[in-house]
């Protein structure tokens, strides 16, 4: 059943023109009359009590309309019901450098920035925790009083009998892997515009409208309601174009609440757009993860057990943390058939910006450790790394030991395809020294089967309205963030209704207009919002079919909707006009001469076909307004087990990936060049191959960034690289060719068989590169990213000729002899005198000495 007219076709994104012309509006592009600019004052301390805030000097500055602090909105919130530990602005305590302290709303950016300088805050510094393993030992000065040992959450899962499994193994590898912290770095810095309606007579505040760069407008509406103590019905959240999310906009980010709080105080619209540095502080990226991994295997390659202890450095707030840590366990072994699994997960609080969900949520780092170690085992038992993966495949349909229901499983074909395309068999082992091939696999959810806020509510609902001239409007809460969700929605609606794509207009992500959808995260949109769209379209189609069938003297089941026509199944092709002509004719006549057109058609009996528009008119004449609703809730059997933490991991369906990376390593410099990555991804069905390939390439590329270049560098709670210059997102020059290979397993429950394609590929890239480096030069890298110095250090260690690099050799004798890794704990020793040039006293002194 691959005979589709719109599904599976290479289609340009429906919103592409707005993006290439610059006409499309993102949040920061919006303005309102009387709009103020908000700027946030951030904490200079990683951990401190706020003793006093005095904003009087700031308020006195001309152009400043309002200054708000934590006291203006003290209600706690958080994305997870178990993690309500944030306030819009710090109430009495700051927990990381960059934590939000106050916000100024002023007539322009310059004034707001100047006003920030005038706010006086007195802090009492507290001891801070930066290393998760140190933080876990904390007895006092806890980051949150209700989290002993700064432990956000720990889980301990045992499936099968791991001890027995390891006892049966012929080969066991055990080692520690570290993946350093990375962030989304979406090109659009977060932005929010909040405006209250004012009663023209009393000036009292009315409804609130918020435009925001968000992946989750409905969660934002919910949290705003919580913090502002307003009913949700009084809050409208609109998502304009969003310049990339990758998870960084998948929860409520402080500025979104702060803008509303400031707008309430200022009684004027307030827009806040983060600086790039603030984006890094808002963060919610992938945590630094320490993984102690142990895998056992039989000599024949069968895996007998896996055990992992995973510690995530979560930062100062819970964010998605509980989910992140659980994903690192749930998807650890479930890609393969492993009967014995032990997993201990620790989500730890530290005095750094909160980590959260980032593309491949929770699975990426453990996949790196697992797939790398699997390669080590293959090497030890002299098995082809592709083969050891094949030996351990699941036999679907099946349920894994941790209760994940696998309905479609394209992994075998993915492995086969990348092995074939990369010339794995022919080339591996025969490449010149310094060049190698490596393989890695991954999998990911197509949305979570259990929503964050437990309820029986469907996760997606879609409404469709069809106008008299055949215009189809789809109302969906799904958030287009560049991944193509609007296009996917339009395609599904058009395919079901058999109309052209041009007829379909998408109204998305506006809480006043669109039915609830829990958002664009965990790769849920195609599967869930897609299914809801499918059902809504089918419901409307049924109404059209019954009206059309009446006109065509047949039963509705006999009708085919396709190419903008409705015709009787089996009617001879020649009697059906070609689609294009009928569209044109229908449009012209339909608008102006509808009456006479219908008249004319009435005389032509019996009819074998109608245009889509005629059928719609017939249906509207019969039913009145033509609308339909569809919703999607994951089936109960997909929702997983009942053990503690079982809620995270289950999905209605899983995607699978296999990749081969081709790399070179310069043994003298440690520089790694990735020549090419072959990436096969089982997306169920590719609804739009251009979009699917774009998502695969983008995921692989982002994995490549994490593998080679990207790393948030911390010194005592200070982020050393809070900008796109020093946080290195790969440029076009070193980005390799990526060959996307689509594998279609046609999922039984996905819309047209489709499932996830935007995240799963990322996790396979890092181990594929690690394994290729091993193949090239025989070094096993256990810390990501593989920067040249880490690679070189490993090469030197390998050679045992490791000439120790002596930093002091030949150094200028006047230079200090001791270099410390970082600036030291300045927080406890007092700071250098604050006398920068914006200090009014200093400025006055300087001007006095000036020339005019």
């Amino acid at each position, binding site marked *: 059943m691959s005979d589709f007219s719109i599904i599976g076709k*290479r289609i*340009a*994104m429906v*919103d*592409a*023109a*707005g*993006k*290439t*012309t*610059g*006409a*499309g*509006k*993102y949040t*920061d*592009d919006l*303005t309102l009359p009387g709009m103020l600019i908000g700027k946030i004052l951030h904490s200079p301390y990683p951990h401190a009590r706020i003793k006093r805030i005095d904003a009087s000097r700031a308020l006195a500055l001309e152009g400043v309309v309002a200054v708000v602090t934590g006291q203006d909105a003290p209600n706690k919130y958080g994305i997870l019901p178990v993690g309500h530990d944030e306030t819009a602005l710090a109430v009495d305590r700051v927990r990381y450098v960059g934590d939000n302290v106050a916000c100024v709303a002023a007539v322009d950016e*310059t004034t707001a920035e100047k006003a920030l300088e005038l706010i006086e805050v007195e802090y009492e510094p507290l001891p801070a925790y930066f290393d998760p393993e140190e933080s876990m030992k904390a007895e006092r000065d806890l980051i949150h009083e209700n989290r002993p040992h700064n432990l956000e959450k720990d889980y301990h899962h045992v499936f099968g009998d791991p001890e027995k499994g390891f006892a049966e193994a012929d080969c066991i590898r055990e080692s520690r892997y570290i993946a350093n912290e990375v962030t*989304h*770095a*979406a*090109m*659009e*810095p977060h932005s929010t515009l909040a405006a209250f309606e004012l009663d023209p007579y009393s000036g009292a505040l009315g409804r609130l409208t918020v435009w925001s760069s968000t992946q989750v407008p409905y969660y934002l509406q919910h949290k705003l309601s919580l913090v502002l103590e307003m009913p949700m019905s009084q809050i409208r959240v609109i998502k304009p*174009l*969003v*310049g*990339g*999310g*990758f998870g960084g906009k998948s929860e409520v980010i402080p500025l979104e609440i702060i803008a509303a709080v400031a707008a309430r105080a200022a009684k004027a619209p307030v827009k806040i*757009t983060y*600086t*790039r*540095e603030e984006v890094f502080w808002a963060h919610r990226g992938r945590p630094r993860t320490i993984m102690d991994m142990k895998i056992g295997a039989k000599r024949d390659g069968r895996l007998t057990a896996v055990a992992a202890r995973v510690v995530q450095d979560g930062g100062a707030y819970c964010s998605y943390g509980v989910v992140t840590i659980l994903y690192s366990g749930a998807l650890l072994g479930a890609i393969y058939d492993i009967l014995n699994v032990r997993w201990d997960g620790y989500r730890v609080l530290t005095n750094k910006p909160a980590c959260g969900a980032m593309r491949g949520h929770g699975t990426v780092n453990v996949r790196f450790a697992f797939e790398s170690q699997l390669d080590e085992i293959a090497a030890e038992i002299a098995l082809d790394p592709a083969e050891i993966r094949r030996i351990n495949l699941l036999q679907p349909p099946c349920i894994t030991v941790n209760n994940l229901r696998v309905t479609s499983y394209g992994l075998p074909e993915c492995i086969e395809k990348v092995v074939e395309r990369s010339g794995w068999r022919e080339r591996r082992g025969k490449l010149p020294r310094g060049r190698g091939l490596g393989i890695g696999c991954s999998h990911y959810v197509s949305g979570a089967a259990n929503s964050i806020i437990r309820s029986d509510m469907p996760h997606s609902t879609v409404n469709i309205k069809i106008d008299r001239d055949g215009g189809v409007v789809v109302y969906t809460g799904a958030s287009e*963030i*560049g*991944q*193509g969700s609007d296009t996917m929605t339009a395609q599904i609606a058009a395919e079901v209704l058999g109309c052209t794509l041009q007829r379909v207009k998408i109204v998305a992500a506006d809480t006043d207009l669109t039915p609830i959808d829990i958002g664009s995260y965990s790769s849920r949109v195609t599967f869930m919002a897609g299914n809801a769209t499918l059902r809504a379209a089918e419901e409307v189609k049924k109404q059209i079919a019954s009206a059309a069938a009446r006109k065509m003297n047949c039963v509705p089941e006999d009708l085919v909707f396709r190419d903008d026509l409705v015709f009787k199944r089996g009617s001879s092709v020649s009697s059906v006009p070609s689609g294009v002509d009928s569209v044109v004719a229908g449009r012209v006549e339909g608008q102006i001469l509808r009456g006479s057109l219908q008249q004319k058609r009435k005389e032509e009996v019996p009819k074998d076909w109608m245009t889509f528009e005629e059928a719609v008119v017939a249906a509207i004449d019969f039913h009145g307004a033509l609308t339909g609703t569809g919703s999607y809730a994951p089936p109960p059997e997909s929702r997983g087990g009942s053990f503690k933490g079982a809620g995270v991991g289950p999905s209605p369906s899983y995607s699978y990936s296999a990749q081969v990376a081709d790399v070179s390593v310069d043994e003298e410099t440690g520089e790694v060049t990735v020549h090419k990555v072959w990436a096969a991804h089982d997306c169920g069905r590719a609804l739009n191959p*251009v*979009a699917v*390939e*774009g998502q695969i*390439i*983008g995921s*692989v*590329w*982002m994995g*490549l960034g994490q593998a080679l270049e990207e790393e948030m560098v911390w010194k005592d709670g200070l982020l050393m690289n809070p*900008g*796109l*210059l020093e946080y290195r*997102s790969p*440029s*076009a*020059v070193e*980005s390799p*060719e*990526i060959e996307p290979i689509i594998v279609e397993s046609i999922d039984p429950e996905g819309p047209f068989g489709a499932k996830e394609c935007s995240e799963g590929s990322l996790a396979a890239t890092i181990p594929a590169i690690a394994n290729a480096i091993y193949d090239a030069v025989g070094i096993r890298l256990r810390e990501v990213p593989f920067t040249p110095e880490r690679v070189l250090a490993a090469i030197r260690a390998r050679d045992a000729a490791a000439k120790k690099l002596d930093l002091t050799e030949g150094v200028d004798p006047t230079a200090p002899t001791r270099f410390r890794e970082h600036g030291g704990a300045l927080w406890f020793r007092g700071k250098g005198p604050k006398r920068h040039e914006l200090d009014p006293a200093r400025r006055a002194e300087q001007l006095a000495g000036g020339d005019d």
Partner: protein
Amino acid sequence: MKKELVELKINGRRHELAIEPSKLLLDVLRQDLDLTGSKRGCDDSSCGACTVLVDGVPMMSCTLLAASCEGQEVTTVEGVAEHGALAAIQRAYGDWGGAQCGYCTPGFMMTVKALLAANPDPTEDEIRYALSGNLCRCTGYSQMYEAVRAAIQAEQKGREQGVGSRNPS
């Protein structure tokens, strides 16, 4: 600081503006002229989302003082479309997946426009090199190369036939 009168020529149109001398071209475009196509993505002149052409040369409008562009021709993404229709490169970026979230896209449009003006038939390496000053976080750049090639072909075909090609395949 006192505003000063500055005359800027943007997309072929003259604008007389009263602006602070410290105001950046990007802010003038976005705030004073509502030309919001040019984007701000960073604060350290690294990302290229604000790229405009100054006398035909790609430059970062976030790194230029608006007042120092007096007397020069500034072209923004709003000036790329031809007589209201998408330019070949704009259409190709849409058709070939060169734009996903679209935030970096205006910057790429300007860079590619300048590239093709200087070198109508670049090799893939030349395209990579030319695009290496613009960061994109969605696409991994790959589909952009196809888009640029498709645009070149469409332009050539357009010159032969007088119309641009519509579909990718």
